[in-house]
């Protein structure tokens, strides 16, 4: 048998596909979180710039242009030099330039110009190339200003961190997913191969093969134990079939041999009409017995397929049992046995009338044939809480433990010599009929005599 290669296995492909999905989602999340963080930072940046503008405007409203300029003056000089900017980058991060309408700098850094088009402006500074967010404002008709804020984080996020994280996720995640997929698949495949190997072994004839359990009780153990159970059941059915085949062969061989013998005798006695007739009659009786075995087997098969369930109807079991007991009473009389009838009224169930008749008939015949001499047999019908309970029993010695176990098996007979009447199918049929009706038949324990109890849901 060809083994499934790990890389070609379904589980591997699924694991890898799932990992890819996770990576894609992770990348998406990184970008989303980055985007949200930047929005947040931008908001704060705006707020700082707005606050600075508002402060400057307040000073202008209260103290005029000089007050506004004082606010941003550093030292005595109106203009900030390049070093101030370096200090600003480290500390406040705010850069200011206020100009008159001739564009002369009144206070602040001359290298700062607003730029309406771009998000970012860059200072005209010899060493710095950091970006800033800038906003312009007016101070009456005397001056206008620009306030800007260093924004290194934004560049950091968009330009560097996000692609880096994406590469990292893909570079680390992809091989990782392949490795995890491979290991996971190999583990799962090993379990599946074990099951598959067992099935293959059974197919190739090693019927005793069973899947080895890991003892963890996981889903593979469960599957394995179900499969083992199924194999056990199949093996048991197979043994049953073998037993039945042997039973059929044995039960058919003897009467057929007898018929052959009688045919031979007929040939010898062709001139003796009376003797020939006697042989024919005997042969017919053997054939009759044979046909009965076949009828019983066919009937059993029919019942066990459950096909008869389609014809279920309401059956008045009380009347059925009473009629049946009345019919069989003379047979018990003739056998010098007695039949005690205790049938409750109004007991009914859903079922197959004909089969229920046959069930009771088989139990009564069984009682006639297998009870002791002068036995007292009883038939009892009662309505239990949710079941119809039918009992047929005698006051004999009961059933030996050996027979008890195999009583309902096909072709089982208490008398192994096969001299007693019957074909060993009667009780099998009783069981099959009871089961067809969703019930069961048991041989009660701890009773005097053999008592069969049939329980069928009402």
């Amino acid at each position, binding site marked *: 048998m060809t083994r499934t290669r790990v890389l070609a296995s379904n589980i591997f492909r699924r694991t890898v596909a799932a990992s890819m999905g996770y990576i894609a989602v992770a990348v998406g999340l990184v970008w989303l979180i980055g985007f949200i963080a930047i929005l947040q930072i931008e908001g704060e940046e705006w707020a700082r710039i707005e606050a600075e503008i508002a402060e400057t405007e307040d000073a202008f409203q209260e103290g005029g242009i000089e007050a506004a300029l004082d606010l941003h003056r550093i030292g005595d000089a109106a203009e900030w030099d390049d070093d101030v900017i370096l200090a600003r980058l480290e500390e406040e991060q705010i850069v200011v330039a206020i100009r008159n309408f001739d564009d002369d700098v009144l206070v602040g850094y001359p290298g700062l110009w607003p730029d309406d088009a771009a998000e970012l402006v860059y200072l005209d500074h010899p060493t710095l190339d950091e970006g800033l967010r800038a906003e312009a404002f007016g101070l009456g008709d005397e001056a206008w200003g620009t306030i800007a804020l260093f924004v290194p984080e934004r560049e950091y996020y968009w330009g560097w961190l996000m692609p880096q994280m994406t590469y990292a996720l893909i570079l680390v995640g992809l091989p990782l997913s392949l490795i995890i997929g491979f290991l996971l698949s190999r583990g799962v495949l090993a379990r599946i191969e074990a099951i598959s190997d067992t099935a293959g072994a059974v197919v190739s004839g090693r019927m005793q093969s069973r899947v080895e359990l890991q003892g963890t009780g996981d889903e593979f153990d469960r599957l394995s134990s179900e499969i083992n159970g199924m194999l056990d059941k199949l093996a048991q059915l197979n043994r049953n079939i073998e037993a039945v085949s042997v039973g059929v062969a044995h039960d058919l061989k003897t009467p057929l041999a007898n018929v052959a013998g009688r045919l031979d005798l007929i040939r010898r006695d062709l001139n003796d009409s009376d003797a020939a007739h006697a042989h024919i009659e005997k042969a017919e009786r053997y054939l009759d017995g044979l046909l009965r075995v076949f009828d019983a087997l066919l009937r059993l098969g029919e019942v066990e397929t459950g096909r008869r369930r389609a014809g279920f109807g309401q059956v008045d079991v009380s009347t059925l049992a009473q009629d049946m007991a*009345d019919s069989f009473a003379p047979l018990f009389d003739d056998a010098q046995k007695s039949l005690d009838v205790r049938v409750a009224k109004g007991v009914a169930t859903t079922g197959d009338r004909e089969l229920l008749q046959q069930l009771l008939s088989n139990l009564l015949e069984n009682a006639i044939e297998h009870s002791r001499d002068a036995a007292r047999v009883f038939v009892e019908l009662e309505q239990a809480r949710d079941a119809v309970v039918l009992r047929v029993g005698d006051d004999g010695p009961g059933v030996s433990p050996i027979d008890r176990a195999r009583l309902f098996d096909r072709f089982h007979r208490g008398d192994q010599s096969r001299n007693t009447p019957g074909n060993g199918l009667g009780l099998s049929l009783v069981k099959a009929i009871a089961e067809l009706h969703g019930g069961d038949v048991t041989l009660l324990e701890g009773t005097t005599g053999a008592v069969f109890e049939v329980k069928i849901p009402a």
Partner: protein
Amino acid sequence: MQVLVVEDEAETREFLTRGLSEAGWDVTVHDNPQPALLDLGARRFDVIILDRMMPGMDGLSALKLMRGAGVTTPVILLTAMSGIDDRVEGLESGADDYLVKPFALSELIARIKSIARRPEIVEEVNERRLGSLHIDRLARQARRGDVVLDLSPIEYKLLDVIVEHAGEVVTRSMLLEKVWGYRFDPKTSLVQTHMSRLRAKLDKPFDTEMIRTVHGSGYMIHDPD
């Protein structure tokens, strides 16, 4: 009596032809339904014996065709299957009786006689008479001469059925169906036991026996006087 047999299996065909001819009947045999249907258009038969399973057109289809064409001749279906569904299906298709193979020739003959004689409309009669035997079906009581027979309900029903078929053989399985309503064959001597009890009451006290055992097939009641 004209009997039409449609049966594909050679062995059964030979067995039927010989047996039914020996019963004194005119037997026409076909191994498939088509010529039989032609025959049915040409002349009248008293009973048709039809195998259920045949290659080509099966017995059930042939039966439906016949009934569709207005042929009312009684039909007995022969079948290898004993399932109840099969029987119901057969009877619903217009068969008058149903016999499971293998069967005894005497069983078939008894059923042919019973069916060919069956009137179109079965009238419920209130009494039956056979010589000195009188059955009052309303009171469910039987008398032979002036003596009222003390019969159990089963014995009464047994007597009623065989008197209905007086002069004909009634087989064990026919009695199981008609008296007990059993479609299976109990292996005990149910029929024999009840029959011997009936005979003990009907025949033993009198000089002449009304019920005869027909060896290997069944029972027959007749007027001995």
